[in-house]
């Protein structure tokens, strides 16, 4: 009972806890927002208590995009209780960004704990933390000026044309307090060494508002950029959209009513490697830290 109240989010109250569990249609709902630019709004009403998380985040995204870029601050919240280590996010990201072998903007880690039969498995998705004070940017720009930058909305960016070569890659990776952000693009294809490279690998990747061929990103450093091209077109990042466990949340943390803000407000959450003080924009929710992560990471 208590856990439920602690985890509850007013926006996501699915079912009223009652013996008959009749779904109340009495709530007056928000108007379902049309996302397209047409200006035309569908008037179908959905009771508040059955909007999916994705629809709420999309509505928030639309609002955020109306603000000037410096007023938005993108954040990601990952609910580790709901990750099932399926890697849909990893693969969606590879597909979305047409990543070559060896580059994945995110990974899901797993660990088994305990002794038979008291066993548990923990799943931990990670990607670039889009830190507010990114040590990678300074380190990279020392090697090649202009390699990296921080956008007004908090996304840490790479200039593929400038950030070339192993040296700058290693500098950024070393400066980063996290394991999983930086990848080196060797310009390969998954379908190399087979009769022919397949057409989807020959398509350009759409990143940073531009398009890039495999040639153009060869020897560049690459990392997650919160799917800039998707979000600025009113779509959720690929990993968030595809997460079937519904563990991934994304939004503008400056909006104190947003899902990401509410999740953090109403749950126990943590950032990784807080001591590095880079102020990551990615937080993890887990209401049972003491009995789970902190057993080893405490």
């Amino acid at each position: 009972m208590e856990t439920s109240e602690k985890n509850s989010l007013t926006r996501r109250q699915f079912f009223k806890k009652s013996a008959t569990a009749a779904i109340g249609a009495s709530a007056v709902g928000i108007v379902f927002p049309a996302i397209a630019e047409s200006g035309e709004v569908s008037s179908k009403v959905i009771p508040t208590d059955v909007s999916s998380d994705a629809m709420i985040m999309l509505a928030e995204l639309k609002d955020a995009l109306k603000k000037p870029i410096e007023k938005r601050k993108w954040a990601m919240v990952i609910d580790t209780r709901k990750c099932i280590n399926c890697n849909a996010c990893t693969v969606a990201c590879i597909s979305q960004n047409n990543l070559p072998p060896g580059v994945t903007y995110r990974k899901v880690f797993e660990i088994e704990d305990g002794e038979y039969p008291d066993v548990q498995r923990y799943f931990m998705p990670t990607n670039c933390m889009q830190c507010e004070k990114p040590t990678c940017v300074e380190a990279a720009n020392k090697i090649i000026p202009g390699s990296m930058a921080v956008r007004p909305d908090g996304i840490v960016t790479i200039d593929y044309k400038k950030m070339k070569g192993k040296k700058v890659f290693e500098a950024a990776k070393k400066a980063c307090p996290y394991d999983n952000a930086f990848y080196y693009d060797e310009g390969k294809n998954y379908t190399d060494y087979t009769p022919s490279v397949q057409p989807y690998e020959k398509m350009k990747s759409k990143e940073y508002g531009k398009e890039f061929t495999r040639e153009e990103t060869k020897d560049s450093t690459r990392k997650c950029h919160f799917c800039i091209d998707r979000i600025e077109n009113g779509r959720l990042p690929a990993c968030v959209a595809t997460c079937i466990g519904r563990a991934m949340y994304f939004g503008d943390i400056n909006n104190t009513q947003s899902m990401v803000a509410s999740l953090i407000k109403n749950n126990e959450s943590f950032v990784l490697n807080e001591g590095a003080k880079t102020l990551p924009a990615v937080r993890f929710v887990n209401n049972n830290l003491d009995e789970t992560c902190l057993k080893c990471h405490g």
Partner: protein
Amino acid sequence: MSWLGEITMKEIKNIQSEKSRREFLKTSALLGGSAFFLSQFQLAEDLYAKAVTSSLMPEEAKQLSNAENFIYTVCLQCHTACPIKVEIENGVAVKIDGNPYSIQTLNPAIPYETNVKDAANIDGGICPKGQAGIQSLYDHYRIIKVLKRDGKRGENKWKVIPFSKAISEIVEGGKLFSNVPGEENRSVEGLKTIRQLKDPSLAEKMAADAMDVGNGKMKLADFKEKYKDRLDILIDPDMPDLGPKNNQFVFQAGRIEHGRKEFAQRWFKAGFGSNNWFEHTTICEQSHHIAFDQITSQYKDGKWGGGKHHMKPDLYNSEFVIFFGTSPVEANFGPPYLSNLINSNIVKGQLKIVVIDPRFSKTAAKAWKWLPVKPGSDAALAYAIIQWLIENKGFNKKYLGNSNKGAAIANDETTWSNASYLVKIEDDGPGTFLRASDIGRGSKDQFVVMWNGNPVVFDPNDENQVVNGDLFYDGKIEKFKVKTAFQLLKEFAFSKSLEQWADEAGIDKENIIEVAKEFAKHGKKSVADLYRGAVQHTSGYYNAQAIITLNLLAGNGDWKGGLTAGGSHWHEDGSKKGQPFNLAKELHPNKIKSFGHKITREGSKYEESIYYQKEGYPSKRPWFPLTSNVYQEIIPSMQDGYPYKIKALMTHKGTPVLSSPAGHKMIEALVDLDKVPLYFACDIVIGETSMYADYIFPDTAVWERWGFPHTTPAVPIKHSKIRQPVVEPLVDKVKVFNEEMPINMEAIMLAIAENLNLPGYGKDGFTAGMDFTKQEDFYLKMAANIAAGDKPGETVDDINTEEYNIFLKARKHLSKSIFDADLYKKAVSDNNGKNWWAKVAYVLNKGGRMEDFEAYQNSGDKIPHIFKGMFNLYTEPVALTKHPYTGKRFAGIAQADPVKGFNDKQVVQGDYHFNLITYKDILGGQSRTLPTDYWLSALSPGNYIIMNFLTAKELGLKDGDSARLVSSTNIEGIWDLKNGNVLPVAGKIKVVEGLRPGVVSVSWSYGHWAYGSNDVIIDGNKVAGDERRRTGLCPNAVMSIDPVLKNVGLQDLIGGSASYYDSKVNVIKV
């Protein structure tokens, strides 16, 4: 002998950097090397070249969200078949996401009436396999031309042959392989000669009479006299119940889906006239379906029937779910839909789950309890819980005491059970239910219960009479010894102590009691769910029945949070009154009634065959009256020539050799030219089974074709999905009935129909004025039926102009032979002069037809689409069925049986100690995805032989060691491919805590030896395989073979399920 298989498991980048480039000779037969391929993607090439020198214009970025870039279809990387939206750029599929109109991927979905323009930015969630669909589509090992073997069966020497030539060879027969040493003079009978029965009215008459000879109602001599001029049609004139020679053509589909099923059945059974149409079901979960079928059969007009095959927990409201032998966040039906609900409701504190599985699955990671049951002992565990519930009154007495529909209605129930019904106890055990006619108090269709010391007779379906019955009774009525069904259940549940059941299940008593307590506590919001882990055993049917019985004790049928049969779908087959195209019963002039015992003897009672009259018990091979699609029996029966030899086999989208237990034995039959004289396959690649064919025809991939898959019952609202081509098919195109079409299953069938002049094809193929010359003629009518709905007044809107423009623009990259609005329109004019195109376009535009979630919200305390019927605690038809070996009756109450062979004796597995189980990781769907999808195999390059650390210690093995699996029926632990190659069942050890000691677990989807993993020769050129595809192991070859039948794995004699989890193996370090 040369050894194939994985050499080492290296990371992708190591493989690519360390190996030098191999000499790949481009062959036009495969996708990767064709001139067709290169020209088709000229656009992509141009774009690529242009992009190197120029940079992108800003508006092009907006293209990402433009509705014109999406076509909605359905994934099939596994059989959850999630609706998807495919993003297309210059004719290339570039990204896949979930269809937001479908609750399977977005929960709840957007309202169905949402404009497609507004849906463009909204994505549902799909699993990694779904995302990797692009790689399955663009796989260089896909075949795009027809291949004919240029050597012995299985030698993997092929030559390209024109489609029309392959068809005419198969139809005409002749000395088709005279270039192969040893076959110079072998003459093959073609389909033309096999098809002896062509006259529909003769078929109709003969069908009934032939089966009557089988069941003794007609004398053989009389039959032979009546049909004396046509006895040559029959396989055996002395056994007319075997049917016509047409039956000697067998169609073995694997995981074919609806839409294609109906297309193929029309062609094969009603057109060609053979009864031997099969799909995969018993290697999947058939005993689960048969148990549900028996438990939900209704008694109407003196017969049991109309049962549902599948029910699931209503996870929106369930509070406590026990999952027996299934991992919903990894497999089942399926992860995108179920993970969402399970996770959300656990986190909310509404739901608690228990996972019963020898393996600590990813679902167990979310569970309140994990019970690592001994493989196969699910019935014992279920009975331990049943015993506790009965002992502690933790069952819904009121519910179980409702004896008929009237009582149900009076108690605000929509279902009731036969728990109180009196069963006659014969000398050999419980038999039929007592009937009113037995005791002279009514008809033979009325049953009897005891109430207040008196027998009461009634009709189960009577709404007006309210009948309640005592749950316990053991006594005599007139001359009959009777007990109630519930009495029988109780006696069986208490036939062992709780400690004994717990010991049999391998779970401590305390945990079982806690689970039982919790189950009782949540009443109608407790559900027991199950899938393959519990039923792919020789006792699978009984295991399922025991588990499902828990739901009857909870009385949860049709309640929100309880057991549901799902929201179902609109009937694409047109079988409902008022639908425009009744493809199920009409629109097939001169169709043939196929008849005769199938080669698997499924659906037939042994006692109603001439074989029985001649030979009695035991039968030579099992007969399966209660089930269907006994997949693993098909090829072994051909090998035995029982009940008759066959002449031609067509496989489609299936690989029985790889996917059946002990499938290696099937290779022996397939290379035997006497047992399988002609074999042609329809396959997307040269696969592990199709490599043994005489001809391989390509097939269109999931994203290139049509289909109408049905929806899992976990979805409570009505939900119809439509699969349609989203890209130009990559296979060659051919002309059939003068229409251009891609080579696929449908093209093969249409071409053979054209060649053989089968009824129901070509001009006026459906009826006067309605031609059947291309596949769209069939599939679009199905779409029209969905658009029309199941009842008058249920039609969808006409598509509006704006959405129609989007619909057309989205398909502009498709050639006229794939999409042509004018031609499509013609296919949907019905007999009443109405044209359905505007409504068909509406449903195609959204990828199907979906009921809005508010139907669930507004349905009160019960689910919106109720089952509304009787649940059978005791299943009379099963009690009336006899074991084909012993002649003993089966039981109407679930039993807790050991592993048994065909002779009904416990199987002895000698000195082999470890229970082998398999499972599916979410990255693997059946036999595809891994190896083809490199994004997935990069995450998981291979699989392992997994064991508990205690087992490893006992065996002296550690993590990373190489080892081989061996069993009593495969002491070498090899796949003998019967072509000079062998493949060891060997791999790397992985040691975990999360597995029951004594159990060895190997995941599915690896261990390939074909499918692009090894070299083949096409037109004299070597096409090298990709090493990445031959990692890991497939354990099926060490699964135990039946001691009596000797060429098939163990199986469940009632439900037909193939046993995957009853085998014992040893693990030998290599």
